[in-house]
């Protein structure tokens, strides 16, 4: 098992198919964050304040589309979600 150099991570992406990531510290709007996504280095700019442990959109997510975490559907977007926005109960509903 190869181990990349340990770096302080800000976002935790749980699965390569996910369109959200978990913030490992509270983020302010307008921060530019680098993250690893499917082995590529990517960036996003935060659009909202996002508390520790909450989710940020890694991509634009259209109304009614699935929110994916752990490679599984965890809910549906109830609004258009833009990359860098806070993803939570205000813009997501349970899919069931």
């Amino acid at each position: 098992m190869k181990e990349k150099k340990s770096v302080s991570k800000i976002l935790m992406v749980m699965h390569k198919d996910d369109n959200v990531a978990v913030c490992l510290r509270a983020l302010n709007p307008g921060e530019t964050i680098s993250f690893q996504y499917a082995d590529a280095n990517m960036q996003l700019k935060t659009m909202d304040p996002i508390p520790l442990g909450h989710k940020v959109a890694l991509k634009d997510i259209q109304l009614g589309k699935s929110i994916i975490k752990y490679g599984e559907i965890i809910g549906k977007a109830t609004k258009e979600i833009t990359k860098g926005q806070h993803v939570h109960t205000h813009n997501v509903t349970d899919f069931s």
Partner: protein
Amino acid sequence: MKTEFLGYQRKDGGIGIRNYVAVISAMDTVNPIAGKIVDLVKGTVLITDLFGRKLAGFNHEIRFRSLVGLGQNPNVGAAIVISLHRPSAMPIAEAIGKNGTDVEFIAFQELGSTLKCIEHGMRFAVKMVKKLSDQKRQSFPLTNLKIGVECGGSDFSSGISGNPAVGNASDRLLESGGTVLLSETPEIIGAEHVLAKRAVNSRVAKKLLNTVKKMEALAIKAGFSDIRSSNPSADNIKGGLTTLAEKSLGAILKAGTKPLIDVLDYAEPLPTQPGFYFMHTAAPACESLTGLAAGGVQLVVFNTGLGNPIANPVTPTIKVTGNPHTVKKSTDDLDLDLSAIITKGLSIEKAGKTVFEEILKVANGKMTFSEIVELTQSTISVVGPSV
């Protein structure tokens, strides 16, 4: 990868990672007497019961199966069953003895006094501890190692650090031929379809989905609000969990990714075929841990977000957390600090390897905090009213 561990051979083919003498109280009236015997004899563990003979039917079956399962756990080399009278002690003792475990029963009303019960219990316990302490550990393949995976006090860290790391260790054990047992039916609601997809056949998938349906019906009947609409809780939402599926997916991660072989009822003995199993239990830690121990796991890995001190008396329990604040607050209780996943970008693979290595160390005899300080409790589920 290591493929063996050191344990104690049992007559029924099971392998213990400890060599305990279990003192089992089969009625609340004699719990204190059982406790005195354990206080006075090193090498014994205490299993108490809160309800005893007032239970009937379904609840009586659960309780009987649980006490017998605890007495037959591979970590138990000998057992004493104590109760108020013969009819409540002897059947349990006889059932435990069927797998070859040395067992004795004590009926208070026959011996007639507390001091006589303590003396009788001590004599047997001392004899058994002497015998068992002379048994040597031998090397066995990991196909004989069965672990339970538990989480409690879950928070934002659980689903992104502790649980995935424990899940990685679960996969390592399953790939080495071992057994992993997941429990807590209420905690899989919302992700049961994901687990059902991993079932080895449609019978097992249906069994899992029916187990969830029964639990939901029971919750409503018992006066709880609907589990689906009351979860995630306000605290969960504040911590960043948005939906029930998200919460439950985070919980099932700790059992790894392998096929689900079967679904067991509460305290039902694990089949001999190794692999990944689910056991129906309630969510509170003591009840769940008691079900796992009665099912025959030798060890539990317990991931806690906010902290939780408890373990079952017969199963050494490795406490882990990925929450850096909890590491600072409850250092004493923790056996493994996984907070580097969050603070230093430690990979899940590396963290999982650490958990797996700790499992082998504890299997080989390394003591966990809850064992050293004896932070243990056995609690058998009671479902519905008892008379």
